[in-house]
């Protein structure tokens, strides 16, 4: 198998995730798209680890999974707070800091 098969799949998933982050207005769906991006990065890490014959790639993929768990916890808490204050989780309406 080619290394590029895995890297290409990761690139496709990454770009779909970027599209989701840019076009979704629902805060929870933006978080889901971010999970997609992190998964694409993880495929790259594990693929390069297998390519180099080094466990470091896999270890860093596990670290990224742990950071993603922390990120989604805090992110959902923030989304919940926005919902409680504004009765809506439309991210384009949360523009209090806009100049």
């Amino acid at each position, binding site marked *: *198998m*080619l*290394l*590029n*098969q*895995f*890297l*290409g*799949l990761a*690139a*496709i*998933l*990454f*770009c*779909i995730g*970027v*599209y*989701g*982050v*840019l*076009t*979704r*207005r*629902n805060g*929870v*769906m933006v*978080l*889901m*798209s971010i*999970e*997609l991006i992190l*998964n694409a990065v*993880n*495929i790259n890490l*594990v*693929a390069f680890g*297998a*390519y180099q014959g080094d*466990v*470091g790639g*896999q*270890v860093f*993929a*596990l*670290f990224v*999974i*742990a*950071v*993603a*768990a*922390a990120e*989604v*916890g*805090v992110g*959902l*808490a923030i*989304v*919940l707070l926005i*919902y*409680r204050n504004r009765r809506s989780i439309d991210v384009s309406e949360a523009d209090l800091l806009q100049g």
Partner: protein
Amino acid sequence: MSQLAMLAAETQEIATNFFFYTIAIVSVLSALKMVTTDNVVHSALWLLIVLASVAAVYVFLGAEFAAATQILVYIGAILVLLLFGVMLTRAQIGHEDDLNHPQPMQGLMVAVILFATMVYALADAFGTTRLDALSEQRVERTDAVADAIFSTYIVPFEAISVLLLAALIGAIVVARRD
């Protein structure tokens, strides 16, 4: 005899390619459905299929522990957390009209340009680099992963532990009703 071995290797190559492309197509189609569907819960369920396919890709790369962790943490914990988020922030569940930006073309253009750049860079750097992930020496044993985490990468591991604790407390403080 060596001809037979070559034939066997070729057959294995075809079989692994077939399964890899099946999984890749399933994950890409599910990801596309995930970012285009107009139902929040359906979107979360499409994400489940993507996460499961990524776990299968890890198995292809000989990373069994990463695949098990992917299923346990992503499908078992993060997806349930996201569904709880949907439940707590939305009164009605089902079809919705205002989930997407009115002009999705900008996001589409950014994604396409990014993808074209990545494809060019990958083809340029790793054009035909081979990766024999399924051969015996490529499969990373789980005890090697454990050794690496608790020796070489012990400092980042401890930092991750503290980060998880901080995120846990932070999430409770932010979301608490008082």
